[in-house]
C-alpha cells in the first residue's frame, strides 16, 4: 500500500516532463474516466516510418492517472505505432512499479486507453483496448 505513493509517482505527478500539447500533431485523442472525472488528452507526432517522434499529455485527475500518463508518454517516444498498439496493462504496471486494485487500475489505465484509441483512430476509448 505504501508503494502506491512512491516518490517516482509523486514526482511525475507534481513535475511532469511531458505535460503540454503538440501543434501541429499527427494524432490527438482525449477521454474521461466517468467514475472520478479524470481527463487525459494525448498528442503525438509520427514520422514517415510510423515512429513516434514527439508525445505530450494534458489533463487533470488523481496522482496515479497523471503520473501514469507522464510515464507512458515518455515511454512511447521512439516506438513504432505497431509497438504502441501492442502495449497492454502490464506496461503501465511496469512503469509505475506497483500493483493496483481494480478501482485504481482504471485511473492508471486511462492514459493507455486514450493513447491506443488515438493510434487506432477510434471514436471512443474502450476498456477492451487495455486488457
Amino acid at each position: 500500500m505504501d508503494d502506491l505513493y512512491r516518490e517516482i509517482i509523486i514526482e511525475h505527478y507534481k513535475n511532469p516532463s511531458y505535460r503540454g500539447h503538440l501543434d501541429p500533431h499527427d494524432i490527438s485523442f482525449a477521454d474521461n474516466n466517468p467514475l472520478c472525472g479524470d481527463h487525459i488528452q494525448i498528442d503525438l507526432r509520427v514520422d514517415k516510418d510510423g515512429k513516434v517522434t514527439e508525445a505530450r499529455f494534458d489533463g487533470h485527475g488523481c496522482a496515479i492517472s497523471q503520473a501514469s500518463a507522464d510515464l507512458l508518454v515518455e515511454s512511447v517516444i521512439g516506438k513504432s505505432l505497431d509497438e504502441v498498439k501492442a502495449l497492454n496493462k502490464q506496461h503501465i504496471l511496469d512503469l509505475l512499479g506497483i500493483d493496483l486494485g481494480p478501482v485504481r487500475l482504471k485511473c492508471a489505465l486511462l492514459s493507455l486507453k486514450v493513447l491506443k484509441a488515438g493510434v487506432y483512430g477510434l471514436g471512443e476509448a474502450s476498456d477492451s483496448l487495455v486488457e
Partner: protein
Amino acid sequence: MSFNLQQIRKDFPILEREVHPGIKVVYLDSTATSQKPVSVIEAMDDFYRRSNANIHRGVHVLAEEATAMYEQARVKIAKFINAPSAHQIVYTRNTTESINLVAYTWARANLKSGDLIILTEMEHHSNLVPWHILAAERGVRLEFIPVTGDGLLDIDAYRSLLSQGPKLVSFTHMSNVLGTITPAQEIIRMAHEAGAITILDGAQSVPHLKVDVQKLDADFLAFSAHKMCGPTGIGALYGKTALLEAMPPFLGGGDMIKEVKLRSFRPNSIPAKFEAGTPAIAESVGFGAAVDYLASIGMEEISAHEHEIIDYALERLEEIPGLKLFGPTADKKGGVASFTFEGIHPHDVAQILDRDGIAVRAGHHCAQPLHEKFGISATTRASFYLYSTKDEVDKLVDGIYKVKKVFG
C-alpha cells in the same frame, strides 16, 4: 434504552476488523452503506438455517413460517415510518427501484407531454435518470429547485416554479453529498397546495431521522434497508393507499396476479401487485431486524448522537488549512462531511487515508450535477452513523495531515 456508544459498537462485529496488519477499520462511509449489527446477521442466518421456504401458497410449516416472517417484517417497517397500514409498504430492491417503480407506473399512467416535474439540483442520480428517461419518452418537462451557495434549497425559487402547475415534485429528504436536511413537510405542503403529487427520497433520512409519513403527509417515500443497518438487495416504497391502488402494476409475473388466463390477467391487490416473482425473503427478515434494532435504540437518540459527531467533525475539519467543506452548517444537516483539500484529488486523499484504515468515499457520489454546480469534479466524503466516535473524527483529521505530508 439509553444511548450507550460502547455497547452499540460491540453490536457491529466488523468494527473490530483489522483492514491492515494491526490497523482496525475506521468506517466513515455509512452514507454509501451502513454496517450491520449481529441481530440482523443472525436473523438472516437463522432464517436460512430454520425457516427457509418460498412464501405464499405453500401449506407446509416452513412456507407458512417464511410467509409470516416476510409479512411481519412489513408490519415492522410500516410502524417504523408510522405508515397507517402495512399494505402501504411495497418491497423493492432499493431506493432506486422504488423511485423507478413510481416513474414506470404512476408517472406513465398520469403524465403526458408538456407536464412539469420539479426536482432539485441536489438529487442523487437515482432521482434524476428515471425522469430523464421519462422526459425523452413522454416529453415531460423537468425543472430544478436551485441549491444556494451554502447548500440549502431555494424555497422562493420553488414557490415560483409551483406557479407553473407541476404534476409531480420529487426530492431528497437528505442530500448524500451536502448532508442538507430539506424542509420536507413544507415542500410537500406547498406541492399539495399547487395540486402536485410528491415523492420523498428517504434513502439518507429514514436511517438517520425519525421519519413520520403521516406527519409529513408524504404521498410516496422511497428508502433502502442497507443504509439503515439492514441487508443489501431490499428496499421499500411507501405510498398512500388510493395512489397505490390506482397505479398499474410494475413488473409482471408470479404473485402480482389474482388470476391469469392465456391472454389476460387480473392484478393482485396492494402491495402484492408490485411484488412480482420470488422476493428477497431472507433480506426482508433482515430488514425487519434492522428496524427493530434502530427502534430499540431510538431514532431521536441516534439523530442526537450523529449531530454531536458532525458538529465536532466540522469544527475539527474547519481547522485544517486548505480544506474546503461543502454544505450547510451542522444544525441544518445530517452526519455527512464532503470536502476538497488543497487541489489534491479526492482519490488520492481517500487512498492515503486507507493506509490508516480510514474508509471514506471519493468521487461525485452519484450526484454529478451538484458537483458541477459547485465547480468541482469530485469530493472526499466522510459520513457518520450511530456507531461513529469522536476518536474516529480525530483519526480522520490526523490522516488528512498525513495526506498533506505525502504530497509535500
